[in-house]
């Protein structure tokens, strides 16, 4: 089992379904790397960058927002609510989002939790933004 296949699924469509060399996913508690031959796993994902190294040696990355990962044999399925190609994240809109999230005022615990989530998302987006 020297192969690895990544399937990236969002509720709207399957974004990615190709063999890859290696993958790095943001788990809920930190980053995790996956190489061929990984033991079966079901896990929860966090917000952040999904990075993959294609068989042709080209790096690709996606911004993903939570979800689940399932590793079964050579197939790695990533289910996420939203995934954005890193090459399409604009610095400007990411900065705007961060500004908006920062400006929000939370008055209850739940609101604070939502705001924290938004802030995390915006910060990660800003970090990953590549185009203007």
């Amino acid at each position, binding site marked *: 089992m020297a192969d690895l296949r990544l399937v990236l699924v969002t509720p709207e469509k399957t974004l990615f379904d190709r063999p890859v060399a290696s993958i790095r996913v943001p788990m809920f508690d930190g980053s995790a790397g996956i190489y061929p031959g990984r033991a079966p796993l079901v896990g929860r994902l966090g917000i952040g960058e999904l990075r993959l190294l294609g068989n042709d040696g080209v790096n690709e990355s996606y911004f993903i927002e939570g979800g*689940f990962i*399932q590793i079964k044999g050579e197939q790695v399925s990533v289910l996420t609510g939203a995934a954005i190609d890193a090459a399409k994240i604009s610095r400007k809109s990411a900065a705007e989002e961060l500004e908006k999230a920062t400006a929000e005022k939370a008055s209850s615990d739940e609101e604070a939790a939502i705001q924290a989530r938004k802030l995390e998302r915006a910060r990660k987006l800003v970090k990953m933004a590549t185009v203007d």
Partner: protein
Amino acid sequence: MANARLLVKRLKSVRNIRKITRTMELIATSRFKKAMDRATEAAEYTKKISEIVGDLGKANLKFSHPLLQERTETKKSVLLVLTSNRGLCGGYNGAVLRNTLRHIRQLNQDGVDYSMEVSGKRGIKFLNFQKIAMEESYTHFEDSPTFAQVDEIGSRYVEDYIAGRIDRLDVAYTSFQTISRQTAVIETLLPLSSLSEGSTEEVASGSGLGPDYEFHPSAEEILAEIVPAAFRAKLFKCFLDAAVSEQIARMVAMKGATENADEMAGSLKQQYNRARQAGITSELAEIIGGAAALE
């Protein structure tokens, strides 16, 4: 001759209407294909979710989650009605709204407090006419609802349900079975009856097969996350189904209308030809009669 002129006018208008219905049919066909593609793509997500739920089942886990628990007493229920923004789609809206009215009557009988949420201008107009109060109304769901839009509503339901503000959520929509079969149904989404397409027991009985998974974090924590995700996917599917069914309904209705217009144009043309011939014959008879009188 006045008769013939009237017929020409009618013939023209019938032909014009035919042009419109034919065009609408073609548009609905192309939109249907797009909506169908989206629905198939979305099915993949639901499939994967069920797969993971199945994997969790192998971990000898008891399926318990606030969203799965049935309330002993239903005090407050929410009815979400999905209709279209535009008309001319045959019995599509009618069927959904008929079901809705029946459901409301049932709720009134049972003495359950309910609130209505309606998507689509057609449904909103109808319920306004029936003087049924609506809590929320949405008109921004077009042919291709996005997950983010649906998620906004879905998250609110999840929060309300867990907090105990609502005890039940029903969705009245048109479910898509096959291309030639769609039925208006009312489905109870909360409490969630089952997580996967098959029942949970069935999934759980498959233990011992397949790989031995490592759960990260624990299976319970993953379950706590996956139940809301499954609910959202299910709600999203309702919207997609409704969109696909609407296009099919419109396609069928417009096809019927085009055929009717064809038939009508044919009979009008025939009537016109007869009237014209009758006119010519009577004119000829007059001339011949006139000439005969001169002799």
